[in-house]
């Protein structure tokens, strides 16, 4: 494999073929011009990259537990601050946390909020695959409305998850962080730009990255980029950033594709195409349109 590409995260990890996060991790870390230290929440990325006695990490890495990746990096970052002041550490180092949506939206929510509020100098990256994929596809508060998971299965009385996703971007921004951005693995130049900006910004920064899961969204491994692309082309996952409170949409089209185009590519939405559930697709379309309008209204 390309040596430059794998200089931080090596090949040989055991992530699924067609998984998005190796690309996300490599792309983001590739934008740091100085050494990085990583903290990682329990999840797919952690278990597939650190199976003892092997590690795919060529950079210093710590996994503590599921809900505390942000608290852990808080300790690392402050240790750096004091040891640098004392002259024990000389080099410039950047700190990056990776966590899935379960470790960010749900169980790690408080830890993230605390770290953002305290203003640690670090980048928090949430790779959002919309559920607890490491434990076999259970719903999280990031799971999209209408998606079937093992804990929100579709059935006679249910069309899947009945609640709307938590808006984590606005919550992160409400902490007054200098930079937060929503990105997508299918748009690497945009992701690179955002990663660089986040890494170069002093203080806590936040990236929410769309990360398709072949196994539990149920699509062929070759399709993760094209499906991710459809998420943005349908406005299901707009690319935008919030810089010092100012919203900017990074990709838009006059004619977004119908959300159905995105939904029909994945097994988790298959049940929505039955006669009974068809209205749910209309509902999702309305939600997507409303959210995009809201977002557009926030842009000055």
């Amino acid at each position, binding site marked *: 494999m390309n040596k430059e590409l794998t200089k931080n995260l090596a090949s040989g990890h055991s992530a699924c073929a067609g998984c998005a996060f190796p690309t996300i991790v490599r792309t983001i870390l590739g934008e740091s011009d100085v050494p990085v230290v990583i903290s990682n929440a329990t999840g797919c990325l952690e278990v597939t990259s650190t199976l003892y006695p092997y590690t795919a990490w060529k950079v*210093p890495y*710590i*996994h*503590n*537990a599921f809900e505390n990746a942000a*608290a852990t990096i*808080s300790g690392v970052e402050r*240790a750096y601050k004091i040891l640098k002041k004392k002259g024990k550490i000389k080099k410039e*180092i950047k700190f990056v946390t990776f966590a899935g949506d379960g470790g960010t939206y749900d169980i790690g929510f408080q830890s993230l909020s*605390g770290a953002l509020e305290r203003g640690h100098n670090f980048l928090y990256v949430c790779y959002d695959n919309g559920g607890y994929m490491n434990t076999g596809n259970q719903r999280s508060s990031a799971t999209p409305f209408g998606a079937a998971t093992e804990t929100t299965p579709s059935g006679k009385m249910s069309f899947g998850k009945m609640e709307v996703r938590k808006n984590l971007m606005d919550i992160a921004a409400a902490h007054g962080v200098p930079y937060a951005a929503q990105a997508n693995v299918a748009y690497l130049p945009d992701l690179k730009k955002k990663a660089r900006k986040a890494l170069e910004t002093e203080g806590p920064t936040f990236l929410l990255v769309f990360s398709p899961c072949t196994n539990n969204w149920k699509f062929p491994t070759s399709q993760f980029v094209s499906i991710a692309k459809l998420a943005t082309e349908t406005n299901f996952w707009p690319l935008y950033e919030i810089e010092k409170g100012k919203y900017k949409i990074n990709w838009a089209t006059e004619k977004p594709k119908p959300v159905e185009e995105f939904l029909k590519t994945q097994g988790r939405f298959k049940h929505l195409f039955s006669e009974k559930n068809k209205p749910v697709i209309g509902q999702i379309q309305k939600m997507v349109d409303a959210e995009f309008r809201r977002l557009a209204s926030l842009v000055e």
Partner: protein
Amino acid sequence: MYKNMTKNSKKLALTGGYAAAEALKQINPDVMAVYPITPQTPIIEVFSKFKSDGEVDTEVIHVESEHSAISACVGSSAAGARTVTATSSQGLALMNEILYIASGLRRPILMLVSARALAAPLNIHGDHSDVMGARDSGWVQIFCSTPQEVYDKTIVGMKLAEKVKLPVMVIMDGFNTSHSVENMEILEKEAVQKFVGEYSPEKYLLDIDNPVTFGPVALQNSYFEFRKDLSDAFDTVEGELEKIYEEYGHISGRSYKKIEKYKLEDAEKILVAMGSVGGTIKDAIDKLREDGEKVGLLEISLFRPFPYEEVKKALKDTKEVIVLDRNLAFGTKQVLASEISHSIGKKVKSVVYGLGGRDTFQKQIMDLVKGDNQSGYLL
């Protein structure tokens, strides 16, 4: 036993909490991550004032929960920084998950605990329910019975943690010790600094030229060995602690042991206890001895690892052993009583006292020794 080698040691009247903060100030750790909880708060308040007045260099991280406090400590320690924290009760219970990770990752974190009752019902006063809940989490546990001991064992605990690469809890009784003022003696900062020495970890995250992965997944083929290694590390603690106490005796003039004996030589009845109740028991013993009762006290200072051999030796010739637990174990024998019983290979008389800050009086101890209280409780 030892002569005080420090010329400028100071006599002060301090609470246990303040004594802990004073010791921490003199250690001047790199990082302290903390969250407030009664009765631990005086420690972090006093320390934060030291920070505000520029008396310490420590990075104090005021986190949003005890779970994050210990999580940040694991991060800081793995990064290569000398790391401390403090907590009590619900806070220690909330930390529970990460206590195991701190020891599993062999992080030499020092934690001061003002031991307090656990809810429900809610109670902010002293007992040992919290620390007993953490007794098998892979942390060394050292009990203190006075503010002087808190000061001394905080310094000793820091050195021990880094020597044996295990996290250490230094435990004082909430309120009884943490908020009680006692005349005590502190060392010069330089003497403490020299005693604890420079912390230089072998492997740490900020050593970016030698990247390490902390906290990997270990499955059926290796997990067992990791846990056994951790268990084996506990075998080194007693020996190292003895050496460190010896060394500390030379600079402080104060001598400490894993267990402390009071009038045991000819004792036919021996009380066994931990923490602040020791003072009350000693007074009771003095009175009982005036009446001809041959009674003594064995105080357990090192609770994890448990010093079975020393305890066995100390109790071998006595007729009756009465063990006082400041914790109620449910559906089983009391914790300290079980340990003592295991040490000497015979039954002991087990008594629970002091839950939720309930006072323990001299007379209760005297009645207990005389056999007038067979209830199993000092209610």
